């Protein structure tokens, strides 16, 4: 496959940045999208040019490190992570536009790399459970109905890649935050901090400058893990209930 790549290049956060166009030849349709970029970077390095910076780690779709806004969609045309996107999803001669996630809360570090530290700070604000250290508890000591366990697990599959923020017209982080609130709110272990968690995580989300939810559903449609809109409704309930019942005046 021969392709034309329009890639966002930006030296650092202060740099204005702009698109550079590259031609690339001899790409196999069995390559992943990141492998295609690896080929480009090899060529750039050999020419003595600065390679294109992008985030990646596990390359098996479970870590949430890779990103990229490809032809107007986060992680490209398939509902998966960029590392699991293959070049067979494109055609010979295509022009592919590659941009970083765009959000005030995700500043560009270099080229296609963004700082997703805002997500970490939201988790630090309340996305945890407090447990006593000591012996490992017996399995099934706390009975949890299968449907609830499944619902919590579905929410917990969120890999915090930020595609929801990238897809949302408001750069809202509601899908991410709602998944993290849901996975703990559904389970008995999460009850201790349940109310305060909702208040603290949403306060942090707002402080980071993410947008509000318009219920367009774009986040779920683009989420590589298919996190559902029902989580956002649950987060709303958690937050309203927390506002009414916690003792934080």
């Amino acid at each position, binding site marked *: 496959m021969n392709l034309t790549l329009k890639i966002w290049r930006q030296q650092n956060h202060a740099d204005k940045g702009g698109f550079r166009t590259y031609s690339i030849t001899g790409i196999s349709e069995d390559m992943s999208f990141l492998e295609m970029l690896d080929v480009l970077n090899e060529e750039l390095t050999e020419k003595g040019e600065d390679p294109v910076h992008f985030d990646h780690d596990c390359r098996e779709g479970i870590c949430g490190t890779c990103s990229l806004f490809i032809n*107007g969609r986060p992680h490209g045309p398939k509902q998966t992570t960029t590392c699991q996107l293959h070049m067979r999803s494109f055609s010979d001669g295509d022009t592919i536009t590659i*941009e970083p996630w765009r*959000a005030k*809360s995700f500043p560009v570090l270099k080229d296609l790399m963004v700082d997703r530290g805002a997500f970490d700070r939201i988790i630090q604000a309340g996305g945890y459970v407090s447990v006593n250290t000591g012996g490992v508890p017996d399995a099934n000591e706390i009975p949890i109905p299968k449907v609830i366990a499944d619902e919590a697990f579905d929410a917990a599959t969120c890999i915090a890649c930020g595609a929801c923020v990238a897809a949302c017209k408001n750069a809202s982080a509601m899908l991410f935050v709602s998944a993290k609130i849901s996975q703990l709110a559904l389970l008995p272990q999460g009850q201790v901090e349940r109310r305060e968690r909702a208040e603290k995580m949403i306060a942090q989300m707002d402080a980071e400058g993410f947008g509000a939810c318009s219920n367009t*559903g774009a986040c779920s449609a683009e989420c590589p893990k298919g996190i559902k809109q029902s989580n956002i*409704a649950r987060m*709303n309930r958690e937050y309203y209930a927390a*506002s009414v019942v916690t003792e934080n005046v």
Partner: protein
Amino acid sequence: MSWVTKTLDSTLGRKLLMALTGLFLILFLVVHLAGNLQLLAGDGGDAFNVYAEGMAVNPLIRAVSILNFSFIALHVIYAILLSRHNKKARPVAYAVTNPSANSTWASRNMGILGTVIFIFILVHLRGFWYRLKFGTPEKVMIDGVEYKNAYIIVEEAFKNPIYSGFYVLSMIFLAFHLYHGFASAFQTVGLRHKKYTPLIQKVGIGFAILVPALFALIPIVMYIQSL
């Protein structure tokens, strides 16, 4: 800030206000439509005039109408606040986007739809409500009682094809606004359930088609009658 203002000033709180005022306005549409369909009763406007007078003097209706006006204002103010906040959340726009791949046009353009509806409300209030309340409308005798002739104001207005056309067009914008807004409001207040959400979504689409269509029927029929 107290806990109430803190909650309502958060992104979730602002959305809650949008949803609750929106749901109230949906209810208002039903009541308003039920009253206005009397324009098509074919009785020369008697039923409508009696109804209009009743609405104007009933203290309970007057209280609800003040509430209604304030909810429209709140809905608009919070829409502006949220839109400004959302704009700030993405200072650098994407060069290429493909939004139709993941969302409906109506859901992404509630602000534009709402702006047209707001302009319509202003024109609508100036044309009917203002003239009836602060103008000097003609009087009409029905069963020996004197009433303001609201019907004739409407009849005169809808003789104008541009005016009637504007009403019909505005109802199309309202339809798209409701197409997204109805179910969206339930989602925002947290009412989502496997059993009921599919029903809410279907009722929402039905409501978004039926209610604006019936509203649009009034200027269409009255314009045809005037020919």
